[in-house]
């Protein structure tokens, strides 16, 4: 087997393998050290609970709610990030003026503001979508800003030399060359949208996987808690892969995409 092919196939073999090893070691050490399942339940117990949870239709409703919130928040945050990023990217003076404020906003723990959001936007999905969107916004915006700035000088000259209008320059050049940056931002954004949604559900409302975390915690049901965390990880992973697959479709011409393809 060729090394490059190996690199492509390997994850599909080793990931399950490593997971199995991890779970076996975990199970054995928890049993051997007699750790209370309240603190770290053995994987068998977690999977049992996962099975029970997945058999309940209510669980799937919660998954649905969480997924919808993540997706809406992610899409809203991304769109806003692109829009603001483009505008600030085009207006360096404005950008220089607001940059410290933007960093301050990014650094402020939005978690502390969730109670306020609940008051302003209610307990429903809106609040979680807004939190997810807010967290997703920043990486996209910062990347787009960078992207707009790093349009190739020669490409700009070309557009000018063929008398392109502002809109044409945006559509055929700036937008396209910004896309890889948008996707780089989106890869971080989806992770943050997941976190934002969960924290939002954690602190308000009564549906979603974040809510299930609180509920299982309050029931002192550690195995179920871990089962929910496992579900969260799965949802996050799927979201992440959807974004990266979408990238392959949207910007097949970019190095980060065709470079990989050639490996395969």
């Amino acid at each position, binding site marked *: 087997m060729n090394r490059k092919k190996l690199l492509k196939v390997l994850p599909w073999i080793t990931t399950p393998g490593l997971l199995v090893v991890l779970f076996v070691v975990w199970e054995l050490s928890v049993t051997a050290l007699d750790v*209370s399942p309240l*603190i770290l339940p053995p994987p068998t117990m977690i999977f049992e609970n996962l099975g029970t949870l997945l058999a309940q239709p209510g669980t799937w409703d919660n998954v649905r709610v969480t997924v919808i919130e993540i997706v809406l928040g992610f899409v809203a945050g991304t769109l806003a990030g692109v829009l603001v990023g483009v505008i600030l990217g085009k207006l360096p003076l404005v950008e220089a003026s607001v940059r410290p404020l933007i960093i301050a906003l990014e650094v402020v723990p939005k978690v502390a503001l969730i109670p306020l959001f609940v008051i302003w936007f*209610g307990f429903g999905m809106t609040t979680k979508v807004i939190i997810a969107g807010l967290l997703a916004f920043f990486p996209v915006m910062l990347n787009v800003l960078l992207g707009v700035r790093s349009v190739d000088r020669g490409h700009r000259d070309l557009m000018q030399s063929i008398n392109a209008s502002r809109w044409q320059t945006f559509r055929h050049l700036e937008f396209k060359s910004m896309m890889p940056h948008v996707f780089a931002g989106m890869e971080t954004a989806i992770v943050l949208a997941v976190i934002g949604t969960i924290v939002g559900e954690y602190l*308000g409302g*009564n549906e979603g996987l974040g809510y299930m975390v609180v509920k299982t915690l309050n029931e002192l049901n550690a195995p179920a808690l871990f089962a929910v965390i496992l579900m969260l990880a799965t949802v996050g992973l799927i979201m992440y892969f959807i974004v990266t697959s979408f990238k392959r479709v949207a910007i097949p011409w970019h190095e980060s995409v065709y470079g990989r393809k050639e490996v395969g």
Partner: protein
Amino acid sequence: GTASSGAAGGSGSGIAPFTYLSYLPMETLSVAPELLADAGGHFENHGLQVTFQSTKGSPQAIQTLVAGAGPLTRVGAIDLITAAADGQPLVNVGSIVRGSSIRILNATVNPLEKPEDFLGKTIGVPSEGGTSDKSLSLMLHKAGLNPDDVARQVVGLGPGTFELVKRGDIAGYMVSIDQSIVTQQQFEGEAQAFDAGDAVRADSQIYTATQQSLEEHGEEIKAYMAAIRDAVQEIIDDESLESVIETMRSKYSFGSLDDDEVAKESLSQSRDLWTAKGTQPLLTTDEGYWAEGYEELVSAGMVEAGSDPSEWLDNSYLPAS
């Protein structure tokens, strides 16, 4: 665990380190006995040097207790019985609050005054399936109503939460005594508090240890309970409350303590709860009440039948009175 074994401790001063796990932050008068025992030197008198550690809610308090992060905590009887019936090795070593220490804030224009008023409405709870949530269910059940007829909504508690009631998003929400007083002050004439009273036996607050922590730190736990008793007694003895408030302020500062009116009102409400309006000896758990509390939970379907609640009760760590 942080506490060293042996009551007398290793140091020459005879002061033993002790970690108390609080399910509430230490900035509330709900933990006034602890605050006074600390600021008033009662812990020191009993040879303890106490560190308070706050957890986020009672489930975490129980988890950390079981994990050995500290030998003692305080949770609702509801939490203790539910977890003990589920096999957790928890022991009640003293009742501090007898009756509901939770208030349900509601609007005077759309008041909640009796259990029937709750039907068909939505009530804000701090967390789904938490202590407050369960005590609300028990209260409704005890009144012969179906708890499912009252919807719950998790509400992040903050300064403006009462707006949700004013807007009609929720009919009321659950807070601690001092928070209810502060809010009634802030929303003068608009806000009022519903008190579930002492109808529900399981709606009480219990000092909780594990079998293991009792074995390893029994002496310190005894000393702790003695210090708490002295502190509570001091609060009861100080009719005007001015002196104890002064003492607490010497070491602590937070909203409800710093405001004379709020501090006095919430301490006097608490005082009634600690003594069950003078009907119960301090800290000693009445075995009958304890069994009743268990039966309430069983009948409400929150706990499986078939356990003997007296196994989870041990009054022997209390000071002889």
